[in-house]
């Protein structure tokens, strides 16, 4: 057990002590018990919030750890969603095949990320320009899918439907002995929760590994890192593909959840959301990003019921306030405070 715990903890993550892991276990218990206390509609809804956090974790990895400003997470979200739609509709997928369709969606998005990333990273496009080009990419994709209304815009049986978005793809179905469990409500919730647990812990291991050490070194000083013998651009490309694929995972799951993917998921204001979640939470820490993103999504959804405009104004305001008052992020600030209290209590 000890070696595994050691790989989870390290300088690149906040929360490495007993205090943190006790809290972690507690939160996990609550999360596991939650469906028993709530109705399936709300549970499905929370599953939707959870599946969005993959996008945020991917951005935290790229931006917070490796120093790459990708403003285009939504591009990969959308590409994976549309690809899932195209494949699953054409195959008439059911059962385990739906998962292959999901993987197909993620694979296409990852390939797209590799291609875009290759041009940007090997063109030595850094800093602000990296953000602008990824941002323009997602906007251009949104504009492209927005005008695919005509019947000629279809791949096989899958119609793009322009601004209204693609519909009619199947939900994910988990083969379970002789029957298929459709992933909605409680089943979807548990599936996403387990996936999130695996990815969160996996990312912790990654950032605390040698690979993670090199990432933060690149963030601090790419030239110095290269002079220590690391092929900086290869590390950046790999990171970009991993981070973008996490957005693709969100996109594929979202599409299967709602059986719907619109171009607006890639346009504005959607493209700004991952940036706001991660900036507000604290981009340099996975846990802070996860907690903050979930809370923001919850607040956003609650307000959206009354007015989406006011919810978005609040998001814009939070971004501005974060930048002006606590640039490293609110949740990270609170987390550091808790860490100090925790150490105080332990000693």
């Amino acid at each position, binding site marked *: 057990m000890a070696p595994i715990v050691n790989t989870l903890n390290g300088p690149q993550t906040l929360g490495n002590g007993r205090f943190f892991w006790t809290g972690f276990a507690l939160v996990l218990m609550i999360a596991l018990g939650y469906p028993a206390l709530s109705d399936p509609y709300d549970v499905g809804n929370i599953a939707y919030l959870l599946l969005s956090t993959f996008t945020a974790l991917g951005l935290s990895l790229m931006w917070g750890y490796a120093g790459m400003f990708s403003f285009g997470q939504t591009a990969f979200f959308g590409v994976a969603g549309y690809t899932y739609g195209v494949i699953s509709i054409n195959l008439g997928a059911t059962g385990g095949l739906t998962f292959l369709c999901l993987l197909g969606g993620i694979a296409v998005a990852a390939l797209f990320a590799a291609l875009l990333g290759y041009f940007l990273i090997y063109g030595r496009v850094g800093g602000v320009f990296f953000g602008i080009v990824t941002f323009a990419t997602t906007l251009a994709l949104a504009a492209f899918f927005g005008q695919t209304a005509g019947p000629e815009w279809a791949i096989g049986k899958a119609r793009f439907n322009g601004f209204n978005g693609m519909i009619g793809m199947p939900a994910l179905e988990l083969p379970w002995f002789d029957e298929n469990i459709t992933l909605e409500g409680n089943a979807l919730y548990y599936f996403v929760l387990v996936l999130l647990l695996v990815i969160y812990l996996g990312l912790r291991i990654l950032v605390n590994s*040698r690979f993670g050490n090199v990432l933060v*070194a690149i963030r*601090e*000083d790419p030239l*110095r890192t*290269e002079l*220590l*013998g690391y092929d900086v651009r290869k590390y950046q490309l790999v990171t970009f593909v991993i981070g973008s694929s996490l957005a693709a995972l969100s996109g594929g799951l979202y599409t299967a959840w709602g059986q719907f993917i619109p171009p607006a998921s890639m346009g504005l204001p959607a493209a700004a959301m991952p940036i706001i979640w991660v900036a507000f939470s604290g981009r340099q820490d996975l846990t802070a990003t996860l907690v903050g993103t979930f809370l923001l999504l919850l607040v956003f959804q609650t307000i959206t019921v009354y007015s989406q405009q006011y919810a978005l104004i609040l998001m814009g305001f939070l971004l501005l306030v974060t930048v002006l008052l606590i640039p490293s992020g609110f949740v990270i600030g609170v987390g550091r405070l808790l860490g100090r209290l925790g150490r105080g209590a332990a000693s």
Partner: protein
Amino acid sequence: MTAILETRQLNKRFGGLSAVADVSIAVATGEIHCLIGPNGAGKSTLFKLIAGTYAPSQGEVLFRGENVTHRKPYERVGRGMSIKLQVPSVFRDLPVAQNLEISLQRTLSGPAMETEKGRLLEFLQLKDDADRPAGVLAHGQQQWLEIGMALALKPALLLLDEPTAGMSPQETERTGDMIKSLNAQGMTVLVVEHDMTFVRQIAQQVTVLHLGRVFAQGNIDAVIADPRVEEIYLGKGHGH
């Protein structure tokens, strides 16, 4: 003795300006070799051509018998060079120990890495600062840390660009001792320097650059005795 590093007819032009012209030097295995010359002589440009952060306009760089002219810096490092640039560039926000780990993890892991890290912290006299962010160290300490990061790679050839820039005379002397003790353990060192006191302290072989060209070459005593060398130093301002 065989040459570990050789440059052949290296040229680097910026627009119309020729910063390095037809420079051929050879660094023999096991020596401390200093590149000296007045300001603007082309030392730093030559250093960058050797490190690979600049590509030459013409000419070749050979390292351990292999033509590395078109190799990227990280590939040269992978072949046994280790490079410390003039401006201290440690990872400022990361702890001193992690700075060393990033370098050490290329060759070591586990307990072996911990041992070596401890040894280096001792050697660099940074033991008490291991957990502090590197950015808060004094200027001289940052320079040492960076030398330590270069050493952690266990290089066959250590390249140092003005390692004593901004150091006090005491710190400079300690740095000199450090370099000599490394050399005594078998490491070849190439140093770019304009501080002649420091050069006298450490150098065995010297190449003098002047206006981008090799002006004189030889062992330290012969070069210092050369009146023409003194002339270009005095004539062009004595540096420090």
